[in-house]
C-alpha cells in the first residue's frame, strides 16, 4: 500500500484500516498481482539457443505477440479448446440443471426425508477432486466396476475411457462432485423466497410444477447465474480428471486440455514464453465467459 506508514497515537482511524489490510494486500500483491504481471512480461519473450548447435547458453529474444500467435497456431492447444468446449457443453447444463432440479424437488411439498437427501447429495463434495477422479477411474475399469460389470452382464460392453466416452467420463466425475454443493446453494436461495409469494401462487391455482418453474425459478436467478459463472470458469481449467484418467486411457493425451498443454509447455518443454501466453489466453477466455454469462443473466433478470 502506497499510503504513508501509520502514525501511532491519536490518528488511529487512518492507521487502523491500513494496518488491518496490510497483511492481505501484501500477500495478494505477491501471489496474485505480481505473478499476473510477470506472466504478461514473460509472454513477450522467447528463450533461444544462442547458436544453432545449442552452444553458448540461451539468449532471450523479444518476440512481441509471437508467443500468442504460436499458441493459437498450435494444433495441440486448439484441440484442447475443442475438448473443453465439448466438456462444458455436456457438464454445465447437466450439473447446473441437475442441481436446480434437485433443489426444486426438495423444496416442493412432495419430498420426504429432506435432510437425508441433502446430506447424501452433499457428501461427494467432501471428497477432494483428485481423489474423486481416482475413485471414478476405478469405477471406469472393467473388472473392478460394479456398473460396468452389470452392463457387461447384459451384453453392453462400453469403453468409457475411449475416444468418444472420455469427455462424458470426466463430466460425470465432476457432476458427481459438484451437484450436491450447488444444490445446497439453490436450496438455500429457495428457502429465502417469501412465503407470501408462494401462497399467492397457490391461491391463483398454480400447481407444484407451475409454482416451481414460474415463481420459484425466476426468484433465484441470481444464484443460478452466479453458479453458472463459477462453474464455467472452473470448467475451462479442467485438469485433475483428465490428468488422473490419463494413466487408464490411450485416448487422453498429455496435452488434452488447455491447462495440461500449459503444464507440458512449462515443465516438460521449458517453453515459458509459450506457457505464459497460453495461460493468459485462457484467462482472457475466462474473463470473456464471465462477461457473457453476466450479460445474459442481466437480460434474464430484466425479462
Amino acid at each position: 500500500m502506497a499510503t504513508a506508514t501509520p502514525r501511532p497515537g491519536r490518528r488511529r482511524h487512518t492507521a487502523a484500516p491500513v494496518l488491518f489490510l496490510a497483511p492481505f494486500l501484501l500477500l495478494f500483491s505477491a501471489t496474485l498481482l505480481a505473478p499476473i504481471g510477470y506472466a504478461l512480461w514473460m509472454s513477450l519473450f522467447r528463450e533461444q539457443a544462442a547458436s544453432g548447435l545449442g552452444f553458448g547458453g540461451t539468449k532471450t529474444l523479444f518476440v512481441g505477440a509471437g508467443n500468442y500467435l504460436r499458441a493459437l497456431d498450435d494444433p495441440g492447444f486448439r484441440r484442447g479448446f475443442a475438448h473443453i468446449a465439448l466438456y462444458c457443453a455436456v457438464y454445465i447444463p447437466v450439473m447446473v440443471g441437475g442441481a436446480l432440479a434437485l433443489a426444486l424437488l426438495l423444496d416442493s411439498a412432495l419430498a420426504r426425508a429432506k435432510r437425508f437427501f441433502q446430506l447424501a447429495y452433499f457428501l461427494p463434495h467432501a471428497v477432494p477432486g483428485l481423489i474423486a477422479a481416482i475413485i471414478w477411474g476405478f469405477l471406469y475399469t472393467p473388472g473392478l466396476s460394479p456398473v460396468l460389470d452389470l452392463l457387461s452382464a447384459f451384453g453392453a460392453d462400453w469403453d468409457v475411457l475411449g475416444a468418444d466416452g472420455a469427455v462424458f467420463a470426466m463430466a460425470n466425475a465432476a457432476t458427481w462432485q459438484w451437484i450436491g454443493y450447488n444444490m445446497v446453494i439453490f436450496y438455500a436461495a429457495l428457502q429465502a423466497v417469501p412465503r407470501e409469494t408462494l401462497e399467492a401462487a397457490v391461491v391463483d391455482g398454480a400447481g407444484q410444477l407451475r409454482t416451481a418453474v414460474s415463481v420459484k425459478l425466476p426468484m433465484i436467478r441470481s444464484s443460478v447465474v452466479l453458479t453458472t459463472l463459477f462453474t464455467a470458469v472452473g470448467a475451462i481449467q479442467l485438469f485433475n480428471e483428465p490428468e488422473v484418467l490419463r494413466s487408464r486411457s490411450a485416448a487422453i493425451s498429455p496435452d488434452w486440455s488447455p491447462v495440461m498443454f500449459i503444464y507440458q509447455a512449462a515443465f516438460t518443454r521449458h517453453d515459458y514464453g509459450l506457457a505464459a501466453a497460453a495461460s493468459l489466453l485462457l484467462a482472457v477466455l475466462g474473463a470473456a465467459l464471465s462477461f457473457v454469462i453476466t450479460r445474459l443473466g442481466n437480460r434474464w433478470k430484466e425479462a
Partner: protein
Amino acid sequence: MAVETTAAPTAPVRPKTPATASAPAPAPWASRAAVNTVLAIVALYTLMPLSWLLVNATKNNGDLFGRPGFRLGAFSLFANIADLFAYQDGLFGRWLLNSLLYSVAGALASTLVSLLAGYAFAVYGFPGREKVYGLVLLGILVPPTVIALPMYLLASEAGLVNTYWAVLIPGLVNPFGVYLARVFAEAYLPAETLEAARMDGAGELRVFRSVALPMLSPAFVTIFLFTFTGSWNNFFLPLVMLNDSSLYPVGLGLYGWNAVLPQEPQLYALVVTGSLLSVVPLAVAFLTLQRHWRSGLTAGAVK
C-alpha cells in the same frame, strides 16, 4: 449487486414452513412417489462410489479383482492400513501430516488474514475502499492454474521452490474469504457496539481482538472450513511447486501411486485404502460442522 445479508449462521432463515395449511388439496400419491423415487435414484448415484470405496478398502489385492464390485472378500482393511503406513518407510503417514500442516495451519493463518481485511472493509471508510475491494473480488475469478507458472518462477527466484513455504504462502490468500468476512462483519457488528468500546478507551486493535473477533466467531469457523477444504483439495499448486515426495500432501502422493498402477498393480489395495483414509478428515469436518457450511454457502450465493 446488492448483497442480502439474510444469511444468519446461527439460525438459518426459514421464512416458509413446508407444512403450511395453505395447500389446497393433498398432492396425489403418484406425484409424491415419482418425486421421491427420483430423489432416491440420485442418492444412489451420489452414494454408490463412496460405498464402493468403503467396501473395497476391506479387500486384499486378489479379492479386488477376484471378487469385484460390492461382493465382499476376506476382510483385510486393517492389513491394508498397516501395509499402507509401512510402504516406503511410512511415506503415506508423512503425506497425511503434511496435508494437515498445509490445511490446518494454512487455513488458520489465512482465515485471520481474511477476517482482518474483511473487517477493515466493513468497518472503516477510507478513500478508494470500493476500488480496492473490487480488485479483491476480481481476484476470485483469476484462474489459479494461470498464475501457477509465474508463481513457480517467482518462488524459484526466492529460493522457496520445493519447501513447505511454496505451498503455505499462496494458500494464505483467499479473496473469497475476504468477501465472506466483509459480508459477515457488516451483518454482525453493530457500529454502536464498536463505538461504545472506543468510548471506553479501547484502541482499534483491541476493539478488533476483544469485541469484534468474538462476535465474528461463526464467520471464523465458516471461512476456516472453506479455506481448509480448498487447501486439502489443492492439487495443481503442490504439483508445480514440489519435487521432494516427503513434502507432498496426501492427494499428490496418491496421484503418483495411481499413475503407476498399470505398471505396479500390487499397489491397487494401497491406493484404494489410501483414498478412503484421505477422504475421512473432510467427511468428518462436513458432518460435524454442517451448519457452518450452509451459512457460508448462503452468504456466498444469495446476492
